[in-house]
């Protein structure tokens, strides 16, 4: 092997801009081109999917119970996400899941859920029920608990927490 002449000093940091190369870059090989196309398609595809999802469901993730009741005629038996606060004393476990009432403003709407609710499900918290109207009842098969952005330490000595629940 011939001894390579010493490499010229690399350009100082920040001087790379516009430094012309002695030769043009090697052409992109077909295999590489296919790879770029696949990566590009996957990225554009996922972006389109996410934006479609976002515009489809994300902008209004749920409908508050009072608005849902007002729009009941147009909603029919369509499946949607219903939101409301679980009314205290309304939770009744059933053979297929749990029955409870959600409130939103002055509206009270009974919900019949199939399946067990999440761990944090309790009275006085906002929840989202996924389901549809059936007469004056909302039939759901999934409950999501909407927790707040407030963090308050538990007080073991306090009998009643500020939100009225027993500790």
């Amino acid at each position: 092997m011939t001894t390579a002449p010493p490499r010229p000093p690399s350009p100082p940091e920040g001087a790379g801009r516009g430094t012309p190369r002695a030769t043009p870059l090697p052409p992109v090989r077909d295999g590489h081109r296919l790879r770029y196309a696949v990566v590009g398609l996957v990225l554009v595809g996922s972006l389109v999917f996410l934006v479609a999802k976002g515009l489809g469901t994300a902008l209004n993730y749920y409908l508050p119970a009072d608005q849902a009741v007002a729009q009941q005629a147009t909603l029919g038996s369509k499946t949607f996400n219903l939101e409301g606060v679980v009314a205290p004393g309304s939770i009744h476990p059933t053979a297929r899941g749990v029955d409870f009432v959600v409130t939103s403003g002055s509206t009270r709407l009974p919900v019949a859920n199939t399946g067990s609710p999440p761990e944090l499900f309790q009275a006085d918290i906002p929840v989202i029920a996924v389901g549809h109207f059936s007469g004056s009842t909302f039939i759901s098969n999934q409950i999501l608990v909407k927790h707040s952005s407030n963090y308050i330490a538990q007080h073991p000595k306090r009998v009643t927490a500020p939100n009225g629940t027993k500790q």
Partner: protein
Amino acid sequence: MIPSRNVHAPPAQSPRARWAVGIIGITAVAATALTVWLGLWVTPPDQSQGDLVRLVYIHPGVAWVALYLAFALAAVSSLLFLWTRTRSMFWDRLAAASVEVGVVFNVCTLISGSIWGKPTWGVWWAWDARLTSTAVLLVLFLGYLALRRVPAEPDVRAKRSAFVALFAAVDIPIVHFSVLWWRTLHQGATVLNPNLSPTIHGSMAWTLLLGFVAVTLVFVWMLLVRYRIGVLEDYLGTGELDVALRERQAEGAVTDEEEAA
């Protein structure tokens, strides 16, 4: 023989810079360890979430770094690159390093959020505006990284990437305000809420703050190291090309000599 000026050596990092990176790294590890200790053992359980609240010391900090710090830094660097008066490869490298580290933090945000979401909300994922716009941000910046892999002159690559970074950065305020603009499953901001009055108290608040500092330090350390790797990569890239060119030239020279003989 050691030449007086070693032209083969990559651009050196000053001892002061090495020292600073080391100190930041050690501080980051110490702050993270302290956050873990305070978060898991010292702070009380939350009134409604119980022990699940302990994820609040990690998830928002990671999200802050990924969604705001890293990508906003990338956007500002890209802007400074595009502005001719401040144009320098420094900004391009900084943007690239910031996006790469930011993507890692973005993935961590989605994973830690998912782990928190399952026991609290009851689902791993929900197509609400906050989660969806965060996923969009990840895909946009993955696109940025993919674009940087397409061969091009450094200047052309830097310009293209800068435009993509600025386009992607439009999603940053959308992610932040999504919980205010639309009805989301994700809760609103605890600290950076519209009233700027944090709804977290006592040791929980201090640990949350420390968590932000710890994750930010980890980000800064990773950013500095990644930037340095970028400098070395650029050096190696140009070096390899020079070697290849010289080999070809040498081949040509040999053939000429043979023909002459």
